[in-house]
C-alpha cells in the first residue's frame, strides 16, 4: 500500500508539471477530436500521430503522457459519432450505437451524450484506481517470472488473442504469425547474423516499428475511407439542450459499476481490448436488467453499459502492458512500441527503474479522466461539428499527416513508399476479415518471445522440458487451453440448446 502512495506521489509530481499538464489536456482534446471523426478510431489516431509525437523530441514521460491522452480521448470521442451518426469509429464503439443512436433520434441527443460522458468517466476512473492498486502487485509478482514463464505467458496472450479477437481463429493466428515473421527481419541480436535482409542496408536494423504501424493502420484506414467514400456530408443529428438527469444516473448506477468491473478485467486479458469488453458488458447487462425489453430502443442502461466497459477496458489494457510488457490491445501495443523507441523496456522492472514514467502515466490518466469530463460536457457541440467535416478534406489530410510523421523520423523518402505498400497490404488483410491488431501485437512481441525462448533453452542446455517445469508455466498453459476451448464449447452448447428449443431447425 505504501508503495502505491509513494508511487502516486511521484506520479503526480511528474504529471502536474505545467508542461505535462498541458500535454495531457492537449492529448485529450486532440484525441476526442480524432475519436469523433467518423471512421477514425483510437488505434488509427494514435498510429498517425505517434511519429509526430516522437519527432517533437520530448522526454519519454512527456511523449507517453501525450499519446496516452490521445488514446484515452479517442476512446471517449468515439461515442459522439456512434450516437449522432450511427457510425462507430472502431469496433469498441459498435455497442454504443445500439441504444445511443435511438436516443438521439428520439430528440435526446444531449442526454445521451452527457450520460455516456459520465459513464465513461466513471468507468475510466474506476479502471485507473484499480490499476494503481493492481499494477505494483502484479509487477512485484512478475519480477519472479523466468524466461520459461514468459514463453508460457506469450502463448497465453496469443491464445486469448486468437480465440477472442476477429471472426476466424485461424486468420487471427496467421495475422499474429505474420507480425512475428516481420519482426525477424534484420540482424539477430544474439549472434549478429543478418536474417531476411537480402543485403538491403535500409532494413539491416529491422523494419522500423513506426513504419509498420503507420502503414498498416493509418494508410490502410485511408484506403478504406476512399473505398467507402460517400460524396457530400454525412447527416448528423442535432445536439439539443437536454441533459442527463439524476434519475438516469440512479437507474444506471449498478449497470455502470458492473460494466466497469467487467470491462477492466476483460481489458487486462492480453489481446482483448475495448471491443470485446463493450460487447460482453452489453450482453451481460441485457441479460440481467432488460426485463421490459427496452434494450436497443434507447434504454439509458444499454448506453451506459458499453461506454463504462469501453473506458474501463482502455485502462485495464494498460496493466499488462506496463507490468508484464505484454499489451492488452492493439492500441496499447502501439504505446508499448513507443516506449521501446525511447529505450524503455516495459515490464516488471519499469516500476522500480523508471517510476517517473510508469507512475507519471498513471497519474496523468487520473487527470486526463477529469479533464475529459470537463472538456466533454460543455464542448460537445464543438466536437459534434467535427462530424460534418466532408470526407474529401479528411482523407488527404490523413495522408499528409502520415507522410509528415514518417518523413520526420529519418528523412528517407523510401519509407514513404514502404508505408504506401504496407497500407495496401493492410487494406487487403482487412477486406479478407483479418484483424490488424494481432499483426502489430506479433510484431511488437516478436523479439521478446524469441529471446525468452532462447534464453530458457540456454538455461536448460537445450532441454525443451524446461518450458513445463514450474507451476506458473503450467497454470498459464492451462489458461491458454481454457481460453481456446471454452468459446468453442459454449457455442456448441448454445447451438445444441437452440436445437432443443426449435425442433424444426
Amino acid at each position, binding site marked *: 500500500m505504501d508503495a502505491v502512495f509513494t508511487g502516486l506521489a511521484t506520479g503526480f509530481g511528474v504529471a502536474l508539471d505545467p508542461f505535462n499538464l498541458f500535454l495531457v489536456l492537449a492529448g485529450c482534446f486532440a484525441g476526442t477530436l480524432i475519436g469523433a471523426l467518423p471512421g477514425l478510431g483510437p488505434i488509427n489516431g494514435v498510429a498517425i500521430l505517434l511519429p509526430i509525437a516522437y519527432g517533437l523530441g520530448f522526454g519519454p514521460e512527456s511523449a507517453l503522457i501525450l499519446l496516452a491522452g490521445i488514446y484515452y480521448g479517442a476512446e471517449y470521442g468515439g461515442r459522439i459519432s456512434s450516437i449522432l451518426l450511427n457510425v462507430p469509429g472502431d469496433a469498441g464503439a459498435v455497442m454504443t450505437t445500439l441504444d445511443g443512436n435511438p436516443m438521439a433520434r428520439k430528440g435526446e441527443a444531449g442526454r445521451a451524450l452527457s450520460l455516456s460522458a459520465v459513464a465513461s468517466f466513471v468507468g475510466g476512473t474506476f479502471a485507473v484506481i484499480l490499476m494503481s492498486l493492481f499494477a505494483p502487485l502484479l509487477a512485484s509478482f512478475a519480477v519472479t517470472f523466468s524466461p520459461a514463464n514468459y514463453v508460457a505467458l506469450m502463448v497465453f496472450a496469443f491464445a486469448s488473442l486468437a480465440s477472442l479477437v476477429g471472426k476466424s481463429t485461424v486468420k487471427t493466428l496467421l495475422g499474429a504469425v505474420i507480425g512475428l515473421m516481420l519482426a525477424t527481419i534484420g540482424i539477430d541480436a544474439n549472434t549478429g547474423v543478418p536474417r531476411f535482409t537480402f543485403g538491403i542496408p535500409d532494413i539491416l536494423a529491422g523494419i522500423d516499428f513506426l513504419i509498420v504501424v503507420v502503414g498498416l493502420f493509418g*494508410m490502410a484506414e485511408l484506403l478504406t475511407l*476512399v*473505398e467507402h467514400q460517400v460524396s457530400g456530408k454525412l447527416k448528423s443529428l442535432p445536439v439539443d439542450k437536454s441533459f442527463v438527469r439524476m434519475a438516469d444516473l440512479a437507474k444506471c448506477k449498478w449497470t455502470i459499476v458492473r460494466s466497469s468491473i467487467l470491462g477492466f478485467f476483460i481489458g487486462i486479458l492480453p489481446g482483448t481490448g475495448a471491443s470485446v469488453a463493450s460487447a460482453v458488458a452489453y450482453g451481460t447487462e441485457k441479460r440481467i436488467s432488460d426485463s421490459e425489453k427496452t434494450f436497443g430502443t434507447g434504454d439509458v442502461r444499454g448506453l451506459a453499459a458499453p461506454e463504462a466497459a469501453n473506458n474501463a477496458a482502455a485502462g485495464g489494457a494498460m496493466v499488462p502492458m506496463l507490468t508484464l510488457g505484454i499489451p492488452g490491445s492493439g492500441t496499447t501495443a502501439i504505446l508499448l512500441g513507443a516506449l521501446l523507441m525511447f529505450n524503455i523496456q516495459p515490464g516488471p522492472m519499469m516500476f522500480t527503474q523508471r517510476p517517473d514514467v510508469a507512475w507519471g502515466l498513471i497519474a496523468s490518466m487520473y487527470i486526463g479522466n477529469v479533464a475529459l469530463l470537463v472538456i466533454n460536457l460543455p464542448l460537445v457541440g464543438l466536437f459534434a461539428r467535427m462530424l460534418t467535416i466532408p470526407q474529401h*478534406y479528411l482523407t*488527404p489530410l490523413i495522408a499528409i499527416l502520415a*507522410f509528415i510523421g514518417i518523413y520526420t523520423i529519418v528523412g528517407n*523518402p523510401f519509407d*514513404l513508399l514502404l508505408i504506401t505498400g504496407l497500407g495496401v497490404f493492410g487494406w487487403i488483410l482487412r*477486406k479478407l476479415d483479418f484483424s490488424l491488431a494481432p499483426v502489430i501485437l506479433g510484431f511488437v512481441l516478436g523479439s521478446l518471445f524469441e529471446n525468452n525462448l532462447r534464453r530458457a533453452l540456454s538455461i536448460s542446455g537445450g532441454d525443451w522440458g524446461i518450458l513445463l517445469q514450474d507451476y506458473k508455466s503450467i497454470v498459464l498453459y492451462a489458461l491458454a487451453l481454457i481460453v481456446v476451448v471454452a468459446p468453442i464449447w459454449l457455442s456448441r452448447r448454445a447451438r445444441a440448446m437452440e436445437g432443443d428449443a426449435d425442433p424444426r431447425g
Partner: protein
Amino acid sequence: MVDRIFAGVLLIVTLAYAVIAFTAIKAPFQYDPLGPESWPQILSLVAMACLLVILWRPDATEMGVACKTWFRLGATVLMLCAYSELYEPLGFVLATILFGTALCAMLGAGLVRSIVFGFAAGIGGYLLCVTLLDLNLPEGELIEAIMDATAQEGAS
C-alpha cells in the same frame, strides 16, 4: 476464391521464408542451443499450417468492391506513390499542394475548393510543422537550387 488466391500468394512467400530459414541462415559459431535459424523455422511451420487451413476452407469469397471503386483506389495509390517520389525533389510545400488538390478533387470536392484546400494544407502545414513544431521537412531540391542561384546572383 479471393481467400485462396491471397493464401496461395502468402504460401509462396512463406515457403521462400522457410527455405531461407532452413538452409541459408547459420551462425558461424554459437553457444546457445537455439541459433538464429530455429525461431524462423518454427514460425514458418505455424504459418504454413494456418495457410493450409485457409486454403482448405476459405470463407471470404469476394472482395465486394465495385469496378468504379477499384479505379478510385488505384488512383489513390498512384497519387500516394507520386507524392512519395516528389516529396524531396519538389519539397513539402509544392508536393502537398499538388497531392492535396488532386486527391481532394478526385474525392468529389469542387475544383476551387480543392485548390484552396491544397494551398492551405501545403503552406499551413509547412508553417505549422517547421516554424512552430520544429520538425524536419524537405524544402525541395528545386527550390533550393533556385534560391542558391538567386543568392549567387545577388552576391555577384
